């Protein structure tokens, strides 16, 4: 009874991967196989090298910030206060909002005539509007913020599950012995949270590498990541070969990153 399920999953992943790999190693001009021509071509595009940098930047900076913010929110939710249920429901709101809608909302926020510029102007921070989505590091930060808005609740949920699994008596005992909040956090909560942090990092890390809708809708061709680069190569320039080559490199990066991370973590806790 398991066979149809596994066959469907394997068939719809292995066959496409195989044919994408064949495409990637086929020469677009002569059709000869195997050939590295497509890889050589995309690596010579500065847009592709930029896309690789952007993908890595969004992944590294995004993960760091999401983890910090997610941990902060989870710690807030660990306290007992009035309106906690409402607060939790509000924090989970982004999970129910389609990513393309998030992109649409962020467009108004980051537009040159948008509300972020207006808010900053009224606070006296800027005199002239900033072109948030026009390129450069601040555009990458805008993408990170947009992604963070959507996914931090997920990180928060994972970490909250971890925090709630820590017995309260342990924390109370430490408090009675005079351990400050910071000490309890660093020496009790964080070490026990390790497997949950690993899970959050892997789940979110994979998604961050594959980020697609937000850069596509927010920055289009101005600022590309690897997934949107692959998309534009196929859809705008009609070149499935270079598109497949970019996708193959993206997958290789994800596999290497996950494998390397698991190797580093293996020494401590069980994973997942």
């Amino acid at each position: 009874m398991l066979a149809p399920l596994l066959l469907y999953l394997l068939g719809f992943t292995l066959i496409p991967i195989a044919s994408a790999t064949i495409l990637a190693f086929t020469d677009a001009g002569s059709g000869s196989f195997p050939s590295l021509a497509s890889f050589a071509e995309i690596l010579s595009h500065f847009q592709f090298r930029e896309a690789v940098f952007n993908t890595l930047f969004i992944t590294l900076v995004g993960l760091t910030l999401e983890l910090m913010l997610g941990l902060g929110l989870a710690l807030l939710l660990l306290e007992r206060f009035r309106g906690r249920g409402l607060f939790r429901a509000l924090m989970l709101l982004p999970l129910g909002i389609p990513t393309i809608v998030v992109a649409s909302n962020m467009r108004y926020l980051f537009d040159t005539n948008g509300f972020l510029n207006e808010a900053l102007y009224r606070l006296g921070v800027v005199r002239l509007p900033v072109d948030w989505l026009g390129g450069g590091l601040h555009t990458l930060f805008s993408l990170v913020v947009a992604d963070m808005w959507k996914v931090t609740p997920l990180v928060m949920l994972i970490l909250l599950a971890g925090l709630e699994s820590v017995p309260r008596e342990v924390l109370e005992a430490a408090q009675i012995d005079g351990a400050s909040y910071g000490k309890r956090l660093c020496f009790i909560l964080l070490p026990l949270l390790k497997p949950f942090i690993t899970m959050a990092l892997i789940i979110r890390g994979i998604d961050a590498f594959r980020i697609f809708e937000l850069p596509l809708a927010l920055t289009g061709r101005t600022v590309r990541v690897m997934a949107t680069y692959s998309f534009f190569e196929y859809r705008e320039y009609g070149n499935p070969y270079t598109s497949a080559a970019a996708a193959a490199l993206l997958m290789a990066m994800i596999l290497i990153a996950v494998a390397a991370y698991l190797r580093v973590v293996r020494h401590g806790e069980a994973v997942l």
Partner: protein
Amino acid sequence: MRKFAFALLLLFAVIFILTPVYLMVKISLSPPPEILREHPALGMEGVTFSHWQRILAAGQVWAPLRKSLTVAALSVVFSLLLGIPGAYALARLPFKWSSAILLFIFLSRMIPEVEIALPVSIGFIRAGLLDTDLGLTLAHTLRILPIVTWILVGSFRAIPRDLEDAAFVDGCGKVRSLLTIMVPLALPGIAVAAIFGFLGSWDEFTYAVYLAITEQTLPLVVYYYLNRASFFLASAYATIITIPVVIVTYCLQKYLKAEYLAGAVKG
């Protein structure tokens, strides 16, 4: 003082989360001059329903809505047909084995969608499946199968084995036991899986952008309006898609568990 700082943190978090949603609703209801000037108003000054009316009049609602609903419903049916027997078999395997297979299913998410969507869209052109409901359904089924299976295995595992063993003693076969004992008992879990699967298809964008060209789904229409910089129409449209999803997600809050969402939320 501590209490005040705590409240301040809560307030910041709430503002961070609510601002984009507030902007979406505000813009979908604002008269254009209020937004398209050098210093747009932060509050709501006027209210107009003209953007909503324009969207309804443009006939851009019913066709995409039909497509989104059809594809989401079919994907749920497909993934339940594959997922229920599969999850039942997994739940009966030794825990170690089934967990390993579940992990493997989950890891299929490591593959970038563009890597799958590209050859699939080329293959669909040859097979005549491009731009059809069936083609997109097949892709969406792939996307939602892991989470559907994950939830189903959980609910099958929760059913006491004795119930089934009693049926086996009475001469009931595996298939009959699944249909007459397990499925009715796991119905709440199946419903949750179906709803999460539905949302996963309803929100999906990447496969849709590769596989639905002339007949668009709802998320593609938002992208279409965004590309033309029609803020008002895009936001009105975004609000339309979002309202049902937010309501459903809110009702399912207690099922929002980390392990479920890992597969459902982002893709």
